């Protein structure tokens, strides 16, 4: 295929093969998230939280990763909207469904945590936690381990606009930018301009969260996280800067939150937000990169895959109550005080 789609600046372009791949992953992520919501709504899960509306940014973040295990590869400190990134890195629908359905086979938590609380050591994806800020301080540590490593692994940490009000966000800016001790950190804020139900304007005085990085002489970017082309190109630039310069970069991506904060707010589609997938598909069809029929087939492929995954996972066993003490300590060490 020779067709190319240029970004708004007209300075770079992505091949149609890459555009189709990005779209495919965005659809997979969206269909998966909508399947997770259905699982919740049919009473087969206690809770859903996820990332519909962040696919353009999230898929690019995952596609550009130097994926592997250990300090020579990129570390990922994601918050609970990481499905698109992990789908791009290779997450299977089955594993995401095992997580939300609290199965013994859940490879991330063993049935102990919410949906989107992923953990994949083989890709340096450290455990996602529910507090909205702690990943920013923990990320300091992996970046410290990478700072003096001759390989070019970096630390990626993501969060939301509301979470940037927490002190840990400020901590990460301070620690990442100390002169002579700069850390190879790509700090991102996915700004959907709302924290649960509180509007951005009720939480922030700054126009751009990314501007906070400027006080620390940090390179910053504000990007349209609804545009997969811009997201890919800007994230590529950001990754390369951090990887080569070994310095931090703060990137703010404007994104949508299409199904509310979580199932706690109903997990219903909110049409007040822009849908990056619909917009992208219109562009792809306009440039004859994909036809409407081809797009429908992609959705059907992933709808079928998600349903098959549900059918399979549904029959898998739940965690056993007697395993509750397991992994409190490493190496199987007993943690039950009654047995000391």
């Amino acid at each position, binding site marked *: 295929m020779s067709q190319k789609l240029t970004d708004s600046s007209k300075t770079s372009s992505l091949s149609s093969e890459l555009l189709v791949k990005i779209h495919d992953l965005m659809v997979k992520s969206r269909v998966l998230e909508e399947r997770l919501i259905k699982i919740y709504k049919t009473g087969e899960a206690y809770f859903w939280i996820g990332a519909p509306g962040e696919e353009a940014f999230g898929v690019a973040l995952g596609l550009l990763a130097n994926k592997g295990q*250990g*300090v020579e590869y990129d*570390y990922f*400190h994601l918050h609970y909207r990481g499905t698109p990134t992990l789908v791009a890195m290779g997450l299977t629908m089955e594993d995401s469904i095992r997580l939300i359905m609290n199965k013994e086979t859940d490879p*991330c*938590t*063993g049935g*102990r*945590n919410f949906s989107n*609380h992923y*953990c994949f*050591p083989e890709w340096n994806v*450290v*455990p996602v*936690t529910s*507090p909205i800020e*702690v990943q*920013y*301080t*923990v*990320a*300091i*540590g*992996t*970046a*410290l*381990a*990478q700072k003096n490593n001759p390989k070019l692994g970096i*630390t990626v940490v993501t969060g939301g606009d509301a979470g940037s009000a927490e*002190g*840990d966000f400020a*901590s*990460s800016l*301070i*620690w990442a930018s*100390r002169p002579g001790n700069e850390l190879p950190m790509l700090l991102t804020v996915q700004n959907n301009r709302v924290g649960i139900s509180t509007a951005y304007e009720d939480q922030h005085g700054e126009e751009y969260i990314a501007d906070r990085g400027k006080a620390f002489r940090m390179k910053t970017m504000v990007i349209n996280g609804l545009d997969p082309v811009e997201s890919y190109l800007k994230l590529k630039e950001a990754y390369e800067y951090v990887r080569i310069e070994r310095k931090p970069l703060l990137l703010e991506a404007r994104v949508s939150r299409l199904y509310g904060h979580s199932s706690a707010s109903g997990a219903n589609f909110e049409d007040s937000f822009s849908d990056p997938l619909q917009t992208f598909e219109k562009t792809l069809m306009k440039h004859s990169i994909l036809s409407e029929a081809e797009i429908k087939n992609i959705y059907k492929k992933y709808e079928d895959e998600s349903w098959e995954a549900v059918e399979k996972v549904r029959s898998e066993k739940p965690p056993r109550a007697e395993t509750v003490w*397991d*992994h*409190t*300590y*490493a*190496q199987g*060490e007993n*943690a039950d*005080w009654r047995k*000391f």
Partner: protein
Amino acid sequence: MANMAQSIRMALHYGETHLGVKEIFGQDVGPPMGGVFTATQGLKTAWNTPLDERGIVGAAIGLGLTGTRCVAEIQFCDYIFNTIDLLKLAGNTSWSCSGLYHLPIVLMTPVGAGIRGSIYHSHSFDALASRLPGWKVVMPSTPLETYGMLLSAIEDPNPVLFLVPKALMRIKGEELIPGEPGTEKELKAMIDAPLGDRSQWTPKWPALKDVRVPIGQAKVLQEGTDLTVVSYGRSVRMCLSEAQKLEDAGEMSAEVIDLRSIYPYDWQTVKASIEKTRKVLFVNEDTEVTNFGEHLAYRATRELFYELEAPPQVLAGLNVPGIGLHNDLEEVSVPHGPQIRAEMFQLNQLRA
């Protein structure tokens, strides 16, 4: 004989030269100061962080996720309280991901009263620390045990909270750390940084040896038959002193146990002692309401009820918001010798 600060320093040196410690950090931990108690002077991997406790704990967790052994310090435990959710995170990391990650990290912090530290340099943290599942929590009481316990903490694959009784930092030990020179003067000349300009100074480390105090094992400091006293940290030295005086005076024979590990704790040693003496007193400095000693007393009551001759007792700090600066206020707020002795007398007189 080394004091506790010197023993920490030597253990950390042994850790960075033999046990793979790559990063030792905290506020004022690196040069020129080497820690407000001098416990990190001269260490090659020690460095200063921003004055940011959350950053310190977060960095330790992140390093642990990479498998990098590190020892972080919170300068006083009075300033650890704003890291509670990060401490919870460190404790639940392995559990919440079903063992996919472990955190081989040590977090040191000085605790307790005894240096006239007023409201924000006198807190205890052991009761709260015991409510952080996933952590191991220890508190040594002598320089040699500090050395051995810190080596064990460094090599432990789990997060270890190393509580240091700050009032004992300058107390010399009665036993040499293997490899330590024979005199205090020699040791000081080798590893204490000089006053003034230290930019050209490097320590001359003694040829230290590997000594371990296993985490989770208590130590019977004095055997006895009339009652059992269980304590740790600064208080255990007071308990031992009082027990020795009472023994010498022929008043009673008290068994004194240094718990050393607050969690996991050595119940079998405590239990065996109570089964022998049938009376037990738990002593520590933390505030008395929901005190860790209360948990031990509960367990003693529950498991040994029909063997007890008296209700288990807890002597702890008053449940006041802080330790007042004036000597009279500090003395009344945390257990001291006369109070411990009085409790022992009272308990010894009780009969079921």
